[in-house]
């Protein structure tokens, strides 16, 4: 039995309930006992003055690769959990293209258990859509779902076969769980290190035309229309693809999408002189695409912001650019870089938080990212205006491959609670 905790005078923001008010929040036995207004402190309660800070639900990161299993030299679940806690994340959906891939129910159960062991992070594993994420035959979606797979996809690999995608969308209807696509036409994208255009041309890098994203998105939208399946596009990064998704939503299709901070905070020029920390998949785009992603966040075309965390070791990155492994660490910087959109004026603060909490929980169909009475007290307390600088090498956790190295940001996590237990700050 832990002491009750009373957080006092915070700005309580819970987009799920439409709450944005200054008030108290009381935690008893790991759950939210009450919130809003001025609350009386129970006997023996721990008091925390949160005046001036924002208290919101613990963040829900709907897309992150964990180094474990298979790439423990990059990151372990323990180090990822530390980084997540420092970033205010209490729930995370883990990509299935680990080694081995999460194509077996036992592996899904293992990942969930490993999350519970951290006592700071709930891990919802994705199930592999195809065996080994190889794109050849459907994985056991039903058994994976039973074991707790939150949705299905092949991680960083595009589900290339139209037939398999049609089958997956169709079959998943009877078991629940979205099909998540990495939308990049793989033949066009083969060998590419950057987006086609002046920047790639000047650096002499093989490029993929930005339209490779639209081509994949359009095919899969038509397959969703055909099958009535639930489809999600990961890390959407181009204006054209967002236009197609906007139209599909207007047609009433069950289509959702997310993006990640690099795609609304950086453009292709971040590559600079072959900065491999800015090598991502999909690659960074032109400024016009970045602006379209910002607009998509504001108008609701983009349902959620995910960290798109891809831990990499220095040796994966200290290579000639085209040979360097793509991907960026994103857990610890997810909140601050997303808040920059709020500071920049595109997003209201509640909308920015919604994109990180209730919205991804809705897409995944999980109970998280909200602050209702009786809910587990997964909480994130942050100072909206406190400035800090993102520095590669000084991030919490093991993975240091941030493309935001040197970027000043505002918004510092003061405390993170998992089921009422303080796990950061």
């Amino acid at each position: 039995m832990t002491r009750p905790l009373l957080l006092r005078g915070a700005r309580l923001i819970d987009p799920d309930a439409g709450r944005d008010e200054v008030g108290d929040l009381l935690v008893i036995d790991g759950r939210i006992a009450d919130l809003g207004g001025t609350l009386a402190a129970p006997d023996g309660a721990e008091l925390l003055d949160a005046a001036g800070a924002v208290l919101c639900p613990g963040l829900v990161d709907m897309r992150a690769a964990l180094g474990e299993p298979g790439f423990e030299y990059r990151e372990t679940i323990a180090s990822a959990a530390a980084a997540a806690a420092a970033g205010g994340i209490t729930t995370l959906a883990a990509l299935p293209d680990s080694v081995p891939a999460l194509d077996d129910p036992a592996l899904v159960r293992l990942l969930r258990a490993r999350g519970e062991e951290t006592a700071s992070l709930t891990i919802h594993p994705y199930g592999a859509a195809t065996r080994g994420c190889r794109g050849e035959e459907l994985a056991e979606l039903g058994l994976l779902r039973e074991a707790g797979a939150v949705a299905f996809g092949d991680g960083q690999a595009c589900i290339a076969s139209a037939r398999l995608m049609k089958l997956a969308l169709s079959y998943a209807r009877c078991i629940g769980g979205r099909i998540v696509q990495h939308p990049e036409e793989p033949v066009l994208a083969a060998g590419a290190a950057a987006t086609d255009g002046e920047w790639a041309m000047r650096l002499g890098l093989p490029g993929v035309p930005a339209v490779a994203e639209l081509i994949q998105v359009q095919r899969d939208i038509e397959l969703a229309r055909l099958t009535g399946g639930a489809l999600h596009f990961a890390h959407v990064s181009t204006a054209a693809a967002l236009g197609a998704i906007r139209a599909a939503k207007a047609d009433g299709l069950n289509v959702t999408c997310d993006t990640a901070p690099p795609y609304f905070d950086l453009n292709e020029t971040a590559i600079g002189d072959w900065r491999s920390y800015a090598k991502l998949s999909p690659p960074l785009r032109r400024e016009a695409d970045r602006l379209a992603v910002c607009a998509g966040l504001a108008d609701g075309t983009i349902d959620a912001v995910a960290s798109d965390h891809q831990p990499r070791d220095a040796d994966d990155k200290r290579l000639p650019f085209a040979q360097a492994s793509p991907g960026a660490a994103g857990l610890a910087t997810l909140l601050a870089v997303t808040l920059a959109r709020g500071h920049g004026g595109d997003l209201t603060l509640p909308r920015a938080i919604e994109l990180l909490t209730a919205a991804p929980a809705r897409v995944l169909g999980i109970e998280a990212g909200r602050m209702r009475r009786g809910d587990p007290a997964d909480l994130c307390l942050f100072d909206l205006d406190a400035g800090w600088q993102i520095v590669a090498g000084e991030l919490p956790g093991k993975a240091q491959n941030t493309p935001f190295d040197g970027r000043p940001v505002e918004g510092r996590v003061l405390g993170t609670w998992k089921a009422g237990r303080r796990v950061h700050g």
Partner: protein
Amino acid sequence: MQPASRHLLAIQGLHPRQITALLDLAESYALLNRSGKTQRDRLRGRTLINLFFEDSTRTRTSFELAGKRLGADVINMSVATSSVNKGETLLDTAATLNAMHCDLLVVRHDQSGAPALLAQKVDAAVINAGDGTHEHPTQALLDALTIRRHRGELAGLVVAICGDVAHSRVARSNILLLVAMGCSVRVVGPPTLIPGAITALGVSVHHDMRAGLAGADIVMMLRLQRERMTRGLVPSAREYFRFFGLDRDKLAYAKPDALVMHPGPMNRGVEIASDVADDPVRSLIREQVEMGVAVRMAVLDALSRGGGL
């Protein structure tokens, strides 16, 4: 104008004054070479390492000769590469080179940006001898020197660069240099071999060779690698030669005294006809090789002075 660099990694970023200074110095070495004299005290006691991750007898020999004519101790390292361990080799090699106290490091690599990555890790002055599809700065300098010797000045000349621009580091460096020096540069080739964004470098694009060569002072041909055909970027060698190979007929569209260049090695009958390549009046191809040594002597000399370019 960028601050003086202790390396030569690219033409991009060089100011026209820096380019002119290098060409002037190279000119003096060209005269020296023709006189049969040497300046072996210039780099005496300095170590020059030719680090080639990609085969190139021609460029390596040129740098070797340049270094030796200036009195440097020249060592050639060819690094056998497998696609798996290239990167590790690169940084491991950097550590090795530092331990050897190498002064000048000439790097050829099949990956764009590899010399720049190496330059961050080594103490030596790094000279890019061609990286992937990025740049080949000494080639552009030697081409400019060759042109200048025949036309007096670069500004105002019409230069047509023809062929596989998309995969050519020679084309990128030449475009950047010639545009910076006031040439009017055209690129000529099939759309599959011309990047759409190339116009951002200040060139015009032609897909018809005759139109592209019309009125040109200089016709610069690029090497077409066999691999481009196996990847389907052009259907066949004979089709390529038919439309984009330089023969007498197409050359006739350029100025009557237009000069022909090629960085070598040539694919005779693919991008250039033998009678054009070997024409003693129109072809500068052999002189390019000669100027290559002079330009590399100038670059080694300039970088070894410690003040950068």
